[in-house]
Structure formats: C-alpha cells, structure tokens
C-alpha cells in the first residue's frame, strides 16, 4: 500500500438497483493537488465523489482515507476532513445566507452549543472571500442561481477541510465568479496544501487549473496522470469520441483544447 496516498480505492463497485454505476474502480490519490475528474455524462463522476464523501457506501471493494477505511470514521470527524460541493441543490426554506454558511461549521459545534467566536470569524471571512457578505441577511430563496451556488460553495469552505470535492460546482455561475472560485480553490491547493477533486465539464478550465487529470468512462477509470500526459487528442477521442486540437497556449500557460465545427 502507498503510505503517501490520501485516498486509496481498491476494486470498488456500486450499483443503483441493478445498474452498475461504478465498475471495479481502483484509484490512488496523493495528497495536495488539483485533480480534474473528466468524462462523459453518466460515467459515474458524481457517484465517485459521493462515495469519496461517504454519501454512498460501496457495494463491494473499499475506500481508504489516510490509510483507514472510510466507513470506520465517525461521521462528524470525516466531515472535518472532506467537504463536498454538490451540483444540484434545492433549498425550499427561508434560511438566511449567513445561517446556511454557518451550517458548514456543524461538525465543529457541539449539540446545543452556540457557535464560537472562531466559527463566526471563519464564516465572515468566507463570505467576504466569495463576495456574498453584502447579502448575508437575505433569504437564500430570494437569490439567483449563481448567487445560491456561491453560498453553497461558501458553506463548504467554512467547513475548513483538507479535502474539497467539487461536483460541477461552478455550472450555474457567470464566468467571473467561476474564475474567482477556481482561483480561491487554487490558492488553497498551492498555499494550504489542500487536495481538490473537481468534476468539470469545461475542458479548457480543467486544463488551466488542474495539475492532474482522471478520465472516467462507464464507471471505470480509463487513465490518470499529469495534465500534460493526459490531455491529448487521442485521449479526448477515446473518452468523449470527439475530434479536437490540443495545443500549448501562451496566455493560459497550459495546454488548451480547440474544436472545429462539423456540418452534418
């Protein structure tokens, strides 16, 4: 076993009823780094992230976090280690923005206790960072989709974990907030030695930010490695079945992907 691994997944499968969503997947993730999780719709990206966050339990096989089976952790302790930003959320109740972000401190606040000064300081800091402090007393139900997603993201940052799992966390956001959030995440990776695993749709954003890529298809990991090794025309054809042109872009300072229209 790799002692350096933060996550170690061994021959894991997961079923939705009779449908196999994850099919004998093995993967080792070393700590610190921005991991991009790429693959076509329905390939099991969200399910894999759910399994890593213990929102789901593997049907067979095991996930180890820091060398210990993930099922052996006390839930609240694991919540201090791993935060998940979901793609889909639907809040029907009139909680204020601040109340939602404060929910991120749940694992740290004992039952019936009030949040400590430290908890409130983190919440305020995170709200400033994501520029949602100005509507901290507004109800979440009154916000736009992109604003809501920033609040949900702030909630996960308030959780203050070494591991952050993003499931299309920027899909509803305008480009300026998408970049803001990815910059915040990148800073966490570079200066806070955080481990980020992000399922992304946008290949060029993935190329600009991630240092490692995981390609998934049909519930399996197809290939995994450094961005430069992974982001090739051959791989994109194999994973997505698309024609593309991959080149090094001076401005982005990374590889980028270009597409060509095809008249049918």
């Amino acid at each position: 076993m790799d002692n350096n691994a933060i996550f170690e997944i061994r021959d894991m499968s997961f079923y939705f009823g009779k449908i196999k969503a994850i099919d004998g997947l093995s993967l080792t993730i070393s700590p610190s780094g921005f991991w991009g999780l790429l693959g076509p719709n329905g390939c099991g990206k969200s399910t894999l992230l759910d399994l890593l966050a213990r929102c789901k339990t593997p049907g067979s096989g095991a996930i180890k976090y820091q060398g210990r089976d993930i099922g052996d952790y006390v839930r609240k302790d694991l919540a201090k280690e791993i935060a998940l930003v979901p793609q889909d959320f639907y809040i029907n109740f009139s909680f204020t923005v601040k109340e939602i972000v404060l929910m991120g401190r749940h694992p740290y606040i004992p039952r019936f206790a009030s949040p400590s000064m430290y908890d409130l300081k983190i919440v305020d800091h995170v709200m400033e960072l994501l520029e949602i402090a100005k509507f901290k007393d507004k109800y979440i139900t009154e916000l736009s989709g992109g604003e809501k997603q920033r609040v949900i993201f702030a909630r996960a940052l308030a959780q203050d974990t070494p591991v952050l799992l993003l499931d299309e966390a920027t899909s509803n956001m305008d480009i300026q907030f998408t970049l803001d959030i990815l910059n915040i995440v990148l800073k966490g990776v570079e200066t806070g030695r955080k481990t980020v695993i992000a399922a992304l749709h946008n290949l060029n954003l993935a190329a600009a930010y991630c240092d490692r890529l995981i390609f998934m298809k049909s519930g399996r990991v197809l290939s995994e490695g450094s961005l430069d090794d992974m982001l090739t025309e051959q791989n994109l054809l194999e994973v997505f079945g698309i024609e593309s042109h991959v080149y090094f872009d001076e401005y982005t300072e990374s590889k980028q992907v270009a597409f060509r229209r095809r008249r049918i």
Partner: protein
Amino acid sequence: MSVRKEKWAPSETVSAHLILPGVLLVLVVIISTGMGYVHISAIDVIRIILSGIMGNHGLVVGINKVFPYVVLDVRLPRVLTAAIVGAGLSIAGVVFQGILLNPLADPYTLGISAGAAFGASIALLLDPRFLGIYSIPVFAFAGAVATLFTVMSLSSSGGTISCNSLILSGIIVAAILSAGISFLKYVADEQVSIIIFWLMGSFASKTWTDVLLTFLFVSIGFIICTFLARDLNIMSLGDRSASSLGINPNRTRITLLVTASLITAICVSVSGIIGFVGLIIPHLMRFIVGSDSRRLIPASALTGAILLLTADTITRAVLPTEIPIGVLTALIGGPFFCYIFKKRHMALNSGQ
C-alpha cells in the same frame, strides 16, 4: 484548526421569541377556562387552579361551590387538551415540512389522518366493549401507526427513503383508506352520524387522562425534535450536503418521521381530525422567527397551542351552537392559507 477559542459568541436569544407567546398562552388558558355557559372571573379561575394544585381549600372560600368542579373537572381538561394538541400538530408540521423538504406538507400528508379515521370508524362500527371508552382512541392510534409503517415500507428501497416517494405513497395509501372509510360509513347504518362527527374533530368531554396522555407523547416528541433540530436544518440542504456535514440523512429522517407521526397519531386519536393547524402555524412562524428549527419548533408549539385553544373556545363559548373544531379550523385556515400561498407565489414570480 485544533486551536479553539474558549470564548463563545453571544447566543442568539432563543428565549426572547418564547416569552411573549408563553405569557400569552397562560393568559389564554385562564381566560378560556373562565368563559362559557357559566362565566367565572379570571381571578377566581386562578384561585381555583391554585387551590387544586396546592390542595389549599382556603383559597376558594367565597366562590360558588359549583365553580371548582366546572373549572377543574369540566373545562380545564378540555382547555389543556386543546392547547397540547395545537402544540403537537404544530411541532409535527414543522418536522414534516422539514423532512419532506416541502413547506406545504402537514402532519396529515402521509395519510396519517386517513389511517386514524379508518381505525376510529372500525371502532365505532364494531364497538369493542373490552376497551371501554378508549376503544376509539386506541383504534385510531393503531390505524395511524399502521398507516405510517405501510407508507414507509412502500417508499423505502434498499434502506433509504426519498421524499418524493414518501409523499406519493402517502397519497396512494390515503386514497385507499378514504375509500375504506366511505365503505364503512355505507355499512354503518345508525352509527354513521357518530363516525361523521368524529371525523370532524372535537374536544368535547375530554378528561384528565386525555390531558396526561397527550402531554406525555407531545413532550417526548418535542424533546426528540429539539434534540435533532439542527440536523433538521441541515437536512434542508439536501442529502448530499447533509451527509458531507456529518449527518446520517436516512437515520435522521426515519427518527424524525416516526416521532412526528406518533405525535400526530396521539393528537388525532384524542381529538379527531383537525386540519390546517399543522400546515399554517409553521408556515406563519417562518415569516416571524425564520426557518431555523431550533427557534421554529418551540415558537410554533406555543403559537399552535394559543390558536387552537382560542378556536376551541370560540366554538364552545362564543358561537351560539358548537361547530366541530375541525370544521372551524378548516373554514378559517383554508382561506388564510390560500391568501399566503397566493402571496408567496406572486413574490416568487416577481423575483425572477
């Protein structure tokens, strides 16, 4: 992150929201008890209650000898049952809305009232003598609990229960039970009027046993719901977020579901079906204290107690003839609900 400041932030005063309704509830209990065919002044009511608690007969000197009997044995059990049922239905309403992620859910959404009504109808029809006067509450309670577990087993797959399948299962089971009740009414002949009257709900002729029974169940339920109030808040972020915050969504959901259903079952079994309280009170209180269950549950309980007691006092002592309480709450609550629903709907549409 291991360094934690010992200093706690000033707690948001939960109690401030509760002092006013708490005082109001005590006043309404005293005034309601005084009202009725025989009017008894508030001072006398307080003296009689105190003498009853302390066993000091010196306090009731100079008061009509019938009054202590009227207050302690006739009115107070009814008044307290109405208040406790109002509180219970409101607590259950908050919890059902929170679990089902639907602000329009109420304690009867899962068909619990239909189950209780079916059980009560059977009791009225068969008239099982071995249970005496408790045959109806016992059958109603059994019907409600059996319905709950039917609905839960229908909507669970592989140990998890989803909100949508819960609501759907509740509707299906309630529809079947309603047909069953219609059938029972059809074959009931002479007892049909008793069944109909029970279905409309009433606090008439409640005893201290009813008070103690409802108080016991509602208090236990209240304690469990308060214990899980913060988890209930986080559940509204959805299962994935709740789970990544260290909550077991399925276990929390089932615990709260069973608790709120038992509260509902006991309330229905002593008072019949009283609609709209569990829907409107939590809805109304969200506007006033916000959606945080830690404030919402106690605030709704107190307000629900005040409003249902006031409604019962109106039918008992103000109106010329007594209207079944379930009919009154529906007549007042229904249009009021339409109003807030429309307002909310318009606010949502104009916001986009």
